[in-house]
């Protein structure tokens, strides 16, 4: 009995460690930056960090869903670019209401997600390869669509999505919060969420339990695509233009946030809260290094080391 009890408390302790070690890292980093710089702990800067984290945060949430099933989505950056460029064109040249254009951008993301999910789920193709193909196709489509030229002169009302605030909070941050809440509730309280974990943990057992494994796989890529569409809307509004080169390398940041957040690349294990903390850590580090006037070339190295650190901690934990 006593061993069972100690096992239980040990389990809880381990759980707490997992959940809060990242929070602790963030706090320590926050304290260090507050002491070493004058400007870190100012409302303007903190809101700036929150604004910066929003795009990667949204993408990382979609990425986490995919990674939980044991897959990966490399097409994220290209899908953002393509959704964004189409939205920009419509904003400039059409008379469609803004919210319709936003929906179209999100729908484009979803369709690209269907492309990925269809081949992964129904053709049993490797996610890495399928989404790599989609990444290349998406980038190509983007350049073809705008003939390689940026699309600017977007309506002011639209730019609010990227630059405005409500009750002092940046709108992109509010969007991220909403996406997070929806994603969290979906994973935690809806059966689809349990199915996503089950498929990633053991697709055979999921199949025998009557779960439509293919449909779940299709779904997660669609969700990731939708997140790309949302991120594209924010990005276009923030930079006031549709850029054909937009989103380059975003997939890697999203994967980094997911992995730092403790989601296992082999699937079945991970939490959305961790992903958000991971995205926040990346944003804080890059903000802090900016404030400390560290050359941006070095920032890349630091980011790489953080990813490496996260994966080492994870592999130690699983031993």
């Amino acid at each position, binding site marked *: 009995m006593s061993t069972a009890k100690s*096992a*239980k408390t*040990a389990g809880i302790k381990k759980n707490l460690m997992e959940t809060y070690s990242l929070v602790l890292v963030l706090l320590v980093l926050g304290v260090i930056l507050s002491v070493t710089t004058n400007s870190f702990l100012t409302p303007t800067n903190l809101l700036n960090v929150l604004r910066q984290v929003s795009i990667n945060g949204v993408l990382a949430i979609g990425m986490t869903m995919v990674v939980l099933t044991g897959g990966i989505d490399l097409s994220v950056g290209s899908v953002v670019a393509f959704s964004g460029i189409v939205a920009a064109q419509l904003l400039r040249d059409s008379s469609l209401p803004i919210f319709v254009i936003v929906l179209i951008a999100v729908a484009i993301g979803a369709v690209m997600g269907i492309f990925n999910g269809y081949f992964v789920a129904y053709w049993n193709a490797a996610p890495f390869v399928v989404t790599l193909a989609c990444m290349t196709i998406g980038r190509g489509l983007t350049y073809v669509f705008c003939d390689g030229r940026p699309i600017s002169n977007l309506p002011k009302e639209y730019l609010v999505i990227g630059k405005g605030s409500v009750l002092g909070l940046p709108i992109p941050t509010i969007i991220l919060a909403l996406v997070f809440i929806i994603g969290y509730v979906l994973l935690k309280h809806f*059966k689809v969420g349990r199915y996503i*974990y089950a498929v990633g943990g*053991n697709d055979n057992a999921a*199949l*025998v*339990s*009557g779960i439509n494994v293919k449909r779940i796989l299709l779904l997660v890529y669609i969700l990731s695509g939708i997140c790309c569409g949302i991120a594209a809307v924010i990005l276009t509004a923030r930079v006031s233009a549709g850029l054909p080169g937009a989103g380059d390398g975003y997939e890697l940041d999203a994967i980094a946030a997911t992995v730092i957040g403790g989601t296992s690349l082999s699937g079945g294990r991970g939490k959305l809260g961790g992903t958000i903390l991971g995205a926040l850590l990346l944003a804080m580090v890059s903000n802090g290094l900016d404030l400390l006037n560290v050359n941006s070339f070095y920032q890349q190295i630091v980011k790489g080391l953080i990813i490496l650190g996260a994966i080492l901690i994870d592999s130690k934990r699983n031993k």
Partner: protein
Amino acid sequence: METNNVILEAKGISKSFPGVQALQNVNFRLVSGKVHVLMGENGAGKSTLMKIIAGIYEADEGDIFLHGKKVAFTRPKQALVNGIAMIHQELSPILDMSITENLFLGKEIVKNGVLDYRQMNEKSAELLNRVGLNLPPTTLMKRLSTAQQQMVEIAKALSFDSEIIIMDEPTASITNREVEKLFAITRKLKDEGRCIVYISHKMEEIFQIADEITVFRDGCYVGTYNVDEIDEAGLVRLMVDRDLSQIYPERHNVPGDVIMEVEELTQEGIIDHVSFQVRKGEILGFAGLMGAGRTETMNALFGLTGPLTGKIRIEGKEIDKPTPRKMIEAGIGYVTEDRKGSGLVLDMSVRDNIIMASLSKLSHMGKVNFKKANEQSDEFKERLKIKTPSMEQLAKNLSGGNQQKIVLAKWLMQNPEVIIFDEPTRGIDVGAKSEIYRLIASLAEEGKAIIFISSEMPEVLGMCDRIVVMSEGVKKGELDKSEATQEKILSMAANVVNGQEETV
């Protein structure tokens, strides 16, 4: 017992894992030229001790002496070069490599900087010959049966000239015929003066092969006995520390109406026109040798494998193109043979595993009612006596018997009318076995129809009302409990298989 010829001695070994004291101050010794069987319930510590000896785990406390010299292996390779080889229950050969490449993995023979395949193939042919495996050494590993892969593992042990060869449940997934071969080779190795350590749950086998038997219980060493000074009942008593008065429970119910009818179920090249019926409150056995097509029949029936022809009727209603979802909704539950492969999500909690197949019933508009889910899963945990520190514990941390109970709980929660059990007691200990028998019997008494696949003859004879015998994907016949004997089943099951085996 004599103390000379002792090869290995372990003193005061303790080992704990998070939440479990796996071994407690265990003393143990191995003598050359003997087959030493280890027995105990799952979680008793047999495998843990062997893994410590083989350098896979490190002991928390205690010492190991090899030929009187203290050793502490931290890697399997160290144990291997010192003459200790372990053949695991679940083999992990590199399937896309040849036998030779597997045998020489990590100690390839190199001539002038390049691999010397000719010499390696010659040597592996010689090794294969010693274990009675007549295959070209260039054969790819994936072309081999489980039993043949095991022989390659034994050959590998011989290539290190291992003095101690540890086999962890080697007969769990091979046919009776192959068991004979394995035993013949085991005896040969013994005569060469090696010590074979053999972990198994199968009583009949143990008494065929053992010289000495060591019993473990709850992480403690109980004792070592010569095979002639102990009998089956005595062993069981030592293992579980209680009498198991009757292994197979008696039932008094009479089977009722037909609930499921299967007609001419066929899958090209896999199963051929299989027909049977099962009644409410009946236990219908499926006997046959490994690979007879029993699991394949159930997989097809449950909609897990490709297209099929034939008819399936449940309570008179025909099921068109079965899928797992449809079958579950029609009231079928399927406890698959491969617990880890298709029964459990090991990285999920006990609770999440139990509720996995019932989430549709527990959800409203896709949202899971966790209060209800928790109540119901707690209820089944109690009913099946699943031993776990908490419902949030990950399934992978539980013993085999308890894992099997989780799978059972998952299906019982569905309240199915027909439950298919595929080798439900494979790899679990005597105590848990008898619990599972009782549970299955009580389900039948409640009026559930049970399909019971098993390769263990006494189990089929002890549990079933009727027995379907299959071979080579074909139903060979059907026997009523009153007329069924081991000989009849075997002769039905074996006639085709013999012919096939000669050609291998």
